[in-house]
C-alpha cells in the first residue's frame, strides 16, 4: 500500500460541476491544493452530451423573477423557493464568466449572446453554443484548469469509499486504473460531482458512466439523499440507442407528430404545444401509444419529430449535432425526413441533499450538479436549468469547500478503515460465485424500466422492490473473471452495480412512499397531486448497515413567494 496522499480539497467527478468547483476553489485561494479524481478523463464526462443550452435570464424582455416562477411551476412546487431564487440570481454572471473564459456562445447578428426557447420557459432564456452546449462548456472549463497550478488531476481514478470520523469526512479510497493499485487520500473537504444515476435504467439518454457512484458513496458515508423518486424521462430520444435529440429542436420550432399526422400535443398542452414541460410531453407520448397513435418500428413504438420546415440553413447553424446524430445513428437526414423519437430516462432530480452552499448533511462533504439535490428542480426539471445548476452550485460548493478547508485541519482515515476497504475490494475480486455482473446489471435495468418508469403504481413498485432485493442477493455470489487489476472493466462494473442496486431500491422505496402524482412522478393509483400530505421532500439515509432498509423522513418544502396552485400549460 502506498503512503496516503494529501490534498486540501478532493473533488470526485470532473464534469461541469466538478470542474467549476475546482476553478472556484482555486481562484478563492491559490494556496489550496485541489485534486480532481475522475473515473474517466474529465472531457469524457456526461456534461459533454448536453445539447440544447444553459438557462439564464439575459434577454432584454426577461428577468430573474420570471425565471424563478417558471422553474417553480415546472418543479410542480416541490423546489425550495429560496434555493431557486438564489439560483436564478447567479445564472447570468456564470454565463458571462464563461464568455470571458472563451466559451463560444452562439450570437445574434449584433454580437450579443443569443437565447432560444425551451420547454416550460415563458421567455427565450436558453443560452446556447449551437447544439453542443455541454461539450463547449465542459472543454472550456477543462482547458481553464491548466491555468491553475494548484489544480491536480487524477484522471481515470475510481473512488470506492468515503472515509469519515465523528467530526465528518476525512478522505477517500480510490483505484488508480492505469496501475491497477489502490490509493488512500486524506483531505479537509470533499466535493462530490459525479452526476446522476441514469444507468439504473436500460432505456436512457445517459452515458454508460452515469452510474450514481457519488450518491451511493455519500449515502454509505451517512449523508441523506433527497427526492430520489423523481426521475425525468426526456420525450425525444432515438429508439434503441436512447441517444438524446435536444429539446432545442422543438425550441427552434420542431413539431411532434403521431401516426395520424397530427400535432397531438394540442390535446395535452394546447397553449405550449411542443414547448410544454418534459414530464407532460412524455406522458402525452405514452398516452398516444396507448391509443394506438404511435408508429411501430423495429425497436418499438415511436412518434416523429419533424424539423424539415426549419430549412437546411437553420438546421446546420443551430442544430448541427442533431443532424449528424440522426444521420449517423438512424440513417435519417432531418432536413429531408422526420426523426423517429421516443421517451427515455434522462435525469435524476433527486440526489445528495445539500443547502445552497453545497453542504451535505455530513460536515466537510459537499455536492453539486446532478448528483446533488438542493433542490431547484423539485418534481420536474426544466430543460437547460441543469447546465446552469452545474455552474452556479459548482461554484458554490468550490467556494464553501475552500472556506471549510481554510478553517479546518486535515484528519487521516484510520489504518483500520483503509484495511477494511482494501479487504472489501479484494474480496469482490476473488469472490467464488457464479453470477455474471453484466447479467445482474441488465436485469436491474429492465426492472427499473418496467417498475419505476414513466407510469407507476403500488403493485408494480412493490414487486419492483422484491426483484431488486433478489438481485442484491444474487450480487453476493458474483464472479469476476478478469484477474488483471489494470483497467479491470468487470471490477468497475461490479462496484458501480453494487451502488446502483442500492439506489434502485431507494428510488422504488421513495416512489412507493409518495402516494400522489407530482411532476415526473406519476401514479395511476394516486393520479392527483396531494399538497396536504406530500408538499414535502423525502429524505433517505442509511439506518444500520448498508444492507438494511433505509430510514425515510420528511422535510417541508420552502415556500417564499409562490403559493402552490394547479399546474397547467
Amino acid at each position: 500500500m502506498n503512503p496516503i496522499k494529501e490534498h486540501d480539497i478532493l473533488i470526485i467527478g470532473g464534469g461541469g460541476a466538478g470542474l467549476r468547483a475546482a476553478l472556484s476553489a482555486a481562484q478563492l485561494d491559490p494556496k489550496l491544493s485541489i485534486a480532481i479524481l475522475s473515473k474517466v478523463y474529465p472531457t469524457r464526462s456526461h456534461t459533454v452530451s448536453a445539447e440544447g443550452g444553459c438557462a439564464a435570464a439575459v434577454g432584454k424582455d426577461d428577468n430573474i423573477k420570471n425565471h424563478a416562477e417558471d422553474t417553480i411551476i415546472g418543479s410542480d412546487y416541490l423546489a425550495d423557493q429560496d434555493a431557486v431564487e438564489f439560483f436564478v440570481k447567479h445564472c447570468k454572471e456564470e454565463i458571462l464568466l464563461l464568455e470571458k473564459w472563451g466559451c463560444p456562445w452562439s450570437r445574434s447578428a449584433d454580437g450579443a449572446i443569443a437565447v432560444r426557447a425551451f420547454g416550460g420557459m415563458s421567455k427565450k432564456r436558453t443560452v446556447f453554443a449551437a447544439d453542443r452546449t455541454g461539450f463547449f462548456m465542459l472543454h472550456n472549463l477543462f482547458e481553464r484548469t491548466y491555468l491553475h497550478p494548484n489544480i491536480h488531476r487524477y484522471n481515470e481514478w475510481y473512488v470506492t469509499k468515503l472515509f469519515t470520523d465523528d467530526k465528518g469526512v476525512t478522505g477517500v479510497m480510490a483505484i488508480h486504473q492505469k496501475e491497477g493499485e489502490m490509493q488512500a487520500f486524506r483531505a479537509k473537504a470533499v466535493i462530490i460531482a459525479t452526476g446522476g444515476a441514469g444507468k439504473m435504467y436500460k432505456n436512457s439518454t445517459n452515458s454508460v458512466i452515469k452510474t450514481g457512484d457519488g450518491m451511493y458513496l455519500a449515502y454509505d458515508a451517512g449523508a441523506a439523499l433527497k427526492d430520489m423518486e423523481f426521475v425525468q424521462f426526456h420525450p425525444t430520444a432515438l429508439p434503441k440507442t436512447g441517444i438524446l435529440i435536444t429539446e432545442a429542436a422543438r425550441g427552434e420550432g420542431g413539431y411532434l407528430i403521431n401516426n395520424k399526422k397530427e400535432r397531438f400535443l394540442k390535446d395535452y398542452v394546447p397553449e405550449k404545444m411542443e414547448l410544454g414541460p418534459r414530464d407532460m410531453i412524455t406522458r402525452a407520448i405514452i398516452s398516444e401509444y396507448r391509443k394506438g397513435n404511435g408508429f411501430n418500428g423495429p425497436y418499438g413504438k415511436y412518434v416523429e419529430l419533424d424539423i424539415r420546415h426549419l430549412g437546411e440553413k437553420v438546421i446546420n447553424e443551430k442544430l448541427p449535432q442533431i443532424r449528424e446524430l440522426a444521420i449517423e445513428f438512424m440513417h435519417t437526414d432531418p432536413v429531408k425526413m422526420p426523426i423517429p423519437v421516443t421517451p427515455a430516462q434522462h435525469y435524476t432530480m433527486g440526489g445528495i441533499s445539500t443547502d445552497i452552499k453545497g453542504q451535505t448533511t455530513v460536515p466537510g462533504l459537499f455536492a453539486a450538479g446532478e448528483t446533488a439535490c438542493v433542490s431547484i428542480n423539485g418534481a420536474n426539471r426544466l430543460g437547460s436549468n441543469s447546465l446552469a445548476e452545474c455552474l452556479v452550485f459548482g461554484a458554490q460548493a468550490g467556494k464553501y469547500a475552500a472556506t471549510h478547508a481554510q478553517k479546518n485541519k486535515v484528519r487521516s482515515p484510520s489504518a483500520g478503515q483503509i484495511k477494511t476497504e482494501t479487504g472489501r475490494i479484494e474480496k469482490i475480486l476473488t469472490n467464488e460465485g457464479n453470477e455474471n455482473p453484466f447479467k445482474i446489471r441488465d436485469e436491474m435495468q429492465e426492472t427499473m424500466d418496467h417498475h419505476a418508469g414513466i407510469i407507476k403504481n403500488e403493485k408494480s413498485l412493490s414487486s419492483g422492490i422484491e426483484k431488486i432485493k433478489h438481485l442484491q442477493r444474487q450480487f453476493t455470489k458474483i464472479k469476476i473473471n478478469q484477474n488483471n487489476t489494470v483497467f479491470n472493466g468487470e471490477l468497475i462494473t461490479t462496484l458501480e452495480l453494487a451502488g446502483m442496486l442500492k439506489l434502485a431500491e431507494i428510488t422504488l422505496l421513495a416512489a412507493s412512499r409518495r402516494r400522489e402524482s407530482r411532476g415526473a412522478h406519476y401514479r395511476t393509483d394516486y393520479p392527483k397531486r396531494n399538497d396536504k400530505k406530500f408538499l414535502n421532500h423525502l429524505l433517505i439515509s442509511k439506518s444500520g448497515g448498508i444492507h438494511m432498509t433505509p430510514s425515510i423522513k420528511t422535510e417541508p418544502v420552502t415556500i417564499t413567494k409562490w403559493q402552490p396552485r394547479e399546474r397547467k400549460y
Partner: protein
Amino acid sequence: MTKKYTIRIRRYDPQTGKNWYDIHNIYAERRMTVLDALNQINEHERAGISYRSSCRMSICGSCGTIVNGKSVLMCNTFLKDLEDPVTIEPLRNFAIVKDLVVDTDAAMEKLRDALPYTTFSITKSRCESVQTPKQLEKIKQTSQCIKCMLCVSACPIYGLDYNFMGPAAAAIAYRYNKDSRDHVGEKRLDSLTGRNGVWKCNFVGECSNVCPKNVDPAGAIQKMKVMGVLHCIKSALKPKLKSKSKSKK
C-alpha cells in the same frame, strides 16, 4: 436480419507482457457498432477486454482505436460498413496500457503548451463582450476538437518525435489565438513557434483526414506557421523600433 462477422482484437497483458489476437464470431444486425460488438463480447463471453467508452454518441472522444487500419471512434463505426474480418487495435503513437487502452496522459499534458485559456483573470463578470457571428466563425472549426487523440495517433511526426506538441494541442492553440476575446496571443505564439512547436509539422495532413469532427488541425498548423513568421519578424523589429524611439528622445 443478422450477418456473421469475425472480430479480431489485439490484446496486451501488462502483467505478463504477452501480446496476442483474440478472435470472436458475432452475429450483428444492421445497426451494430464496433463498440456494441465489444460490449457484447465482454458481457456475454466474459472476454475481459479493456477499452474506453462513455457517451456512445461520438462526442466524448473516449473510444478511439484502429479498426481495419483506420483511426476511428468505435461508437460511430458500424460493422455493416466494414470488411470482414474486423480487426481492432489500439491507437498508434502511444504506449499500450492494456488491450485497447493507451496512455494519452503525455499528449493531454501537451495542451499546457497551447495555453488553452483566455487571460481574463476575473472571478465575476457583469458585462458582456460583444462577439460578432463573423468573429465566432473564426474559431468555429477548431473549437470542435473533442480531444479523442485520433489525430495524434495518425501523425507520423509525433510517432518519431514525442517532443512535438502534436496536432490536437496545436488546433486548440489556434482556436484560442483566433478568439476575439483573447489577449494572450503573443505569449502563445512564442510557445507555438518554439523548439517543439508547429515547425516540426511537415504537412502530411493525416491528422485532418482522421478527425471525426472536421477540425482540420493540419490547416490550423499551416496558418500558425504564417502567424509565427509574422510574429518573429515583429519581435525582431520591436527592440529596434523601441531603441529608435528612445534615441529620438
